[in-house]
């Protein structure tokens, strides 16, 4: 009962023969040794998105990012320099190793604006460019040349206002790494969607399990049925889920799907609040002017160019998911592993700033609705982690609509294998 045409190979999955169609072994989500290998092979070697440039509005704006995914304690300072560029440094003072930038609790992230970084311990100071500029009682030291003791840099590059860092000094440039999938969406007005809602959750599962949950829409008609009226839930379940399009551009991937056209066709199936505020899970129904006035969307968005299009989701390996919604907004998901069975989940919703109270409340409803769903999504994960952990069953059959899960686990396995044999990917 295919509603949308699949590739000539017969299925999306078989279109990428290297993926195979066999059940997938989930040992990669419960084995502590595999997690340590992932830290080395993936999180210390690939480009990691740490946020957007709008978080650094002026010279001296900075934020810190805790990155235990790349090793215990890893922490980075991201700053807008005097020259206007964005730089990243390891968050460690060169004197005796104190953490340089933090507030009350050293393990909590912080942000702000400053003229320089001053260590709390002995007041060593660093410029926004990372140079050591002041040593307390410098004359007491032995032959210390300040130019030898600048902050340790971390690779930092931008794509469309997204800030990426890389702990590997030899990694290829960011845009080469992101490749054609990213190229295809350049020009989307990300920079004008500055009204943001950010969420954080500590989740008791392997990071890949939550990515799995958001890499398929096959679960939506079942898990979230309480959100719909009874008739709508029955209709959606009968229809099931099929994507419009999948593309694997390893290590990255994307899915294009229908759903969320606005306004909904049958109003009797929409919650009263959604009807009044003309908004809901798919965002405000009325597009912002910026999107209305676009001559056309970048070619990589709605790649099938069909009217049923609702959402495109890109997975930029390893842990960034970017969703662009037809009504003209976007969101990001990040998954930061902290142990084999724990990770920190972050989400940010991005809207064009509202012009009035009506638009503001429509966005509020979209944000509130998002959290209601996310709570349900997060809750299945701990149960999955526990049961996979029993090793009663090791391999699981994934369907064609779960191709992005199959791809994620294969790519991760390949990175770990290659690192083990070559020392790098």
């Amino acid at each position, binding site marked *: 009962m295919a509603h949308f045409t699949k590739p000539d190979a017969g299925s999306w999955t078989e279109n990428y023969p290297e993926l195979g169609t066999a059940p997938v072994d989930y040992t990669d989500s419960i084995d502590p040794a595999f997690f340590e290998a992932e830290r080395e092979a993936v999180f210390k070697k690939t480009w990691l998105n740490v946020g957007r440039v709008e978080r650094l509005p002026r010279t001296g704006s900075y934020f810190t990012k805790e990155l235990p995914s790349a090793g215990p304690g890893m922490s980075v300072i991201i700053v807008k320099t005097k020259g206007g560029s964005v730089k990243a440094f390891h968050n460690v003072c060169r004197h005796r190793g104190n953490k340089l930038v933090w507030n009350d609790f050293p393990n909590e992230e912080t942000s702000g604006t400053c003229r320089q970084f001053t260590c709390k311990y002995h007041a060593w100071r660093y410029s926004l460019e990372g140079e050591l500029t002041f040593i307390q009682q410098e004359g007491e030291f032995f032959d210390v040349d300040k130019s030898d003791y600048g902050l340790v840099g971390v690779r930092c590059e931008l794509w469309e206002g997204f800030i990426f860092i890389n702990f590997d000094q030899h990694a290829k440039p960011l845009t080469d790494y992101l490749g054609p999938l990213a190229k295809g969406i350049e020009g989307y007005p990300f920079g004008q969607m500055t*009204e*943001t*809602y*950010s*969420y*954080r*959750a*500590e*989740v008791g599962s392997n990071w890949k399990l939550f990515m799995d949950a958001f890499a398929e829409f096959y679960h939506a008609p079942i*898990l979230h049925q*309480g*959100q719909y009226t009874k008739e709508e839930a029955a209709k959606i379940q009968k229809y099931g889920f099929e994507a419009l399009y999948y593309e694997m551009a390893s290590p990255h991937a994307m899915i294009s799907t229908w759903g969320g056209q606005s306004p909904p066709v049958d109003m009797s199936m929409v*919650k*009263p*609040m959604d009807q*009044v*505020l003309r908004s809901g899970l798919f965002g405000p129904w009325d597009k912002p002017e910026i999107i209305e006035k676009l001559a056309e969307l970048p070619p990589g968005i709605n790649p099938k160019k069909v009217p049923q299009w609702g959402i495109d989701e890109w997975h930029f390996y390893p842990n960034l998911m970017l969703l662009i919604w037809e009504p003209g907004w976007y969101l990001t998901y990040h998954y930061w592993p902290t142990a084999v069975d724990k990770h920190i*989940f972050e989400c*940010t919703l991005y809207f064009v700033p*509202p*012009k*009035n*109270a*009506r638009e*503001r*409340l429509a966005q*509020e*409803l979209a*944000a*509130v*609705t998002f*959290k*209601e769903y*996310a*709570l*349900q999504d*997060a*809750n*299945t994960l*701990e149960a999955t982690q526990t049961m996979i952990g029993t090793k009663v069953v090791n391999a699981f059959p994934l369907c064609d609509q779960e191709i992005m899960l199959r791809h994620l686990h294969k790519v991760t396995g390949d990175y770990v294998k290659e690192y083990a044999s070559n020392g790098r990917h």
Partner: protein
Amino acid sequence: MAATNTPPAEFSDLEPYLAWDLASEPERYAKRLASSMPEMQAFYDVAFPRLNDVIEYCDKFPLDDLPDDARTLMHIMQSLVLVSFPIEAWKQPRVPDSGAAWVELIREPVI
């Protein structure tokens, strides 16, 4: 929280629900979880029919420069949006099937 904490005269029917005049989502969410369904139903029954009136009133002002009484109205309506899920969908204050899961809002635009 608004300094005056009083809605404009034409919205005096909302006065019994000033406890929902909360500026941030964490405050509103905590109040939702601490409220009973009858409490939220009473709030919803009065506030929901006034939603469009509030929008019309607030839209007379620039969104980034609302007078205190309009801010109070907006905060109450933000609470109403949050309460609409227990009332319209869940029939309980908590999200069903959410168990021990907890998602925290860490940055938001505050009116």
